[in-house]
């Protein structure tokens, strides 16, 4: 490694931090020099946040026997510096703005006033939170942080040694066409499961909501599949979908349709997974939609009927908008289900095949991390998957969250 590299990176961080915080301080009416000083310290910390633990490995000149450095690694390194700066600088800036707004709103005088329903001691809430935070830290945060460490290693379960491989576990994904294909497969299966699943569930829920004799029995039966474990569902569908000897092709044959290679045709196999996954999650969706339908006010529908709206119009313009909070909730839970929990169904049904046509990102993490036993690559891929789902959820809340109608 070039000895100057850490210095240059720290200097760049200091420069960016100084100018950004200096500007922020002046904007909020504080002294700029003071902001610049804090900015230098924060910028150095931010730039080195990821670089120090990684030992600046992506900027080193001489090759390492276990990993190779190319332009992708360098770009990745610059991205990590930028993310590190953002992690440190943005919260500092946010605190400055918050203090400034508090000062200007002149609420400081009332700060000691007793607020009803609040703790008298400021330590009490923290003491009460400690048990929960301790458990979360031990079983969630610590393993998550350890996953980041693991993702920079070549590590195998049961192997006596590990080796540091820089960010190869991440950057090798960019040049891996199979990984890119997996992203597409995941979104295809995920979107199909959510869209088809929710449409079907709403239709069935609407029908089951009709006042029929024995409606309670129908509703109970409709929720049954949800109680079955993904593994059992996978095995049931494996036996049903088996192209030779399976009952689905038998029935297709009876009605004169050519047999479908559900498990050995790369076009049909994702649909086998989609059908099995929808069947599995439908009970949950129907349960929520029936509950939602019970909350749709009868008088709204009646007044729409008086205004001349037919059944379809009433459903489309009255019922569906009133169900939007439930639909929004179900979209998010179903998307999470499609991303993470179809894993069990895929494992028993197709095992990621044929031709890796059902190799979703989650199943790939299992294949790489557990079956192939490559913990480092598995950890890196699970972090990428995590970031995708976080991004997707933020996008969800940003886009459709606003259109959700929670009623008057």
């Amino acid at each position, binding site marked *: 490694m070039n000895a100057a590299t850490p210095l240059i990176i720290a200097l760049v961080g200091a420069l960016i931090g100084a100018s950004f915080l200096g500007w922020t301080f002046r904007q909020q009416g504080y002294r700029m020099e003071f902001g610049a000083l804090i900015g230098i310290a924060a910028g150095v910390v931010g730039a080195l946040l990821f670089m120090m633990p990684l030992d600046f490995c992506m900027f080193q000149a001489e090759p390492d026997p276990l990993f190779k450095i190319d332009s992708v690694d360098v770009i990745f390194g610059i991205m990590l510096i930028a993310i590190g700066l953002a992690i440190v600088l943005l919260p500092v800036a946010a605190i400055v703005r918050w203090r400034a707004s508090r000062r200007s709103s002149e609420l400081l005088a009332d700060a000691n006033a007793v607020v009803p329903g609040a703790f008298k001691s400021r330590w009490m809430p923290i003491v009460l939170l400690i048990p929960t935070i301790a458990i979360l830290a031990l079983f969630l945060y610590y393993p998550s942080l350890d996953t980041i460490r693991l993702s920079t290693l070549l590590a195998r379960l049961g192997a006596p040694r590990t080796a540091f491989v820089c960010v190869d576990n991440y950057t090798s994904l960019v040049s891996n066409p199979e990984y890119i294909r997996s992203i597409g497969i995941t979104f295809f299966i995920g979107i199909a499961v959510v869209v088809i699943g929710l449409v079907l569930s709403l239709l069935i829920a609407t029908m089951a909501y009709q006042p029929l004799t024995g409606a309670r029995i129908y509703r109970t039966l409709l929720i049954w599949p949800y109680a079955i474990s993904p593994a059992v569902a996978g095995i049931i569908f494996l036996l049903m979908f088996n*192209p030779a000897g399976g009952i689905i092709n038998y029935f297709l044959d009876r009605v004169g349709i050519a047999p479908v290679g559900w498990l050995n045709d790369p076009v049909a196999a994702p649909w086998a997974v989609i059908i099995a996954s929808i069947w599995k999650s439908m009970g949950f969706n129907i349960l929520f939609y029936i509950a939602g339908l019970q909350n749709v006010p009868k008088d709204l529908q009646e007044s729409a009927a008086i205004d001349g709206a037919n059944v379809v119009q009433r459903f489309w313009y009255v019922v569906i908008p009133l169900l939007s909070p439930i639909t929004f909730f179900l979209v998010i839970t179903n998307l999470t289900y499609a991303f993470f929990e179809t894993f069990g169904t895929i494992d028993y049904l197709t*095992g990621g*095949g044929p031709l890796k046509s059902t190799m979703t990102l989650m199943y790939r993490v299992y294949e790489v991390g557990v*079956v192939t*036993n490559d913990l480092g690559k598995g950890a890196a891929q699970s972090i990428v998957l995590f970031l995708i789902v976080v991004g997707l959820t933020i996008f969800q809340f940003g886009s459709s969250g606003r259109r959700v109608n929670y009623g008057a």
Partner: protein
Amino acid sequence: MKRLFALFILLTFVLTLVPVAAQDATEVKVWIAFTDNRLDWAKAKAEEFNAALPQYNVVVEGYSNYEELFNATQLAAEQNALPAIVQYFEVASQDAIDSGYFKPIADAVGDRTEINGIATNLDDFIGPVAAYYTINGKFNSMPWNTSSAIMFSNQTILDKAGVDAPPTTWAEMDAACEKVMAMSDAPQYCFTWPNHGWFFEQWLAQQDAPFANNDNGRTERATEVAFNNDAGVALLSWLKEEKDKGYLYYSGAQGGDSWGTVDQAFQGQQTAMAVYSSSDTAIYTNTGKENGYEVVASFLPYNQDAPGGWTGNLIGGASLWLVDGLSTEVEDGALSFLFWLTNTQNAAEWHQVTGYMPIRLSAVAELEAAGWFTENPNFIVAANQLSESQKTIATAGALMGNFPAIRNIVTNAIDKVLLTADADPKAILDEAAAEANASLAEYNALSAS
């Protein structure tokens, strides 16, 4: 309320008593990779053993396949929660040795000739089995379920098609399939096989071709795979040809999941023949009897064009490994159970209820004397196939790190060849070999001493 309190006291009393009673016996945990009738058999045997030697409490736990048990064992080792005995499949041998979790049986026995009155007669095992499980001159793990790849034919369908006996070569397979599929009431497909790495290895061994370098990893640690040789290409080309003709049924399932789809296709009479493991000879033969068709077992068909013809087949199945670092009581209990489970009578019974080979010479003699093989000719096929095999580097099988993962790379390559139109077997195998080499290099970098 008083009554409830009394009941509570009583319950606490009973609950504290139960573990005390169980603590008298030394617990010996055994993990095996079966969940079907084979697990039931092992559990019944453990109960018999516990009744005979009440100072031990052998507890058998089942896992759904070898691959899963392999992973579970590694996790348990990480947490210091290994049982006393683990069943490892043959390809995990290198990983098992490198891991240091296990102790060679020969070392544990020492020079004792009996433990708790159970004879430790290691010289009674049949030749190929003893040879396979002897590593570095030491009897390493306890053979238990030993099998070979064979073929089951629905002779009732073959008779109808005018095929008198199951085909023995790839060319004969093709000819037989032509006849079968030409029938008006032909089954959906002619034959099927589980896309499990083991069969690829068997077909390679038949052609006397190695799977890995350094004499299949037996003279020195394997550093590269060799399966992208002519033998591998010939096999994939043949499978592809049969698939394209509509003769071969490939369910799309790979590895441990592939067995079930083959069972379903053959037992539903959707195929006339199934390449399979001799492990299920009993189930295959009996299902045929119950459903009115005759099942004939025969040698695994071979490549008639291979330079040396048929060389032989390799052993398959799994053995029971003794965990290292157990206390003396647990280790002696585990050893007693291992030798008792594989004694003459149990070895013969195990063979009869499953189809795994009778692994003891004395068991073979006993079965022969009782006329078992003349009455059940399907049960001798696997043993004959192994005893007629030549002993070469190829038929000894590969010893290699990360083998379970490399098997998946091989089955993925087969999947790609069979499901891609105009696939080039040589190019796909080369690609798979490169991937396997990278995986092997990573393993060796971390685990080789």
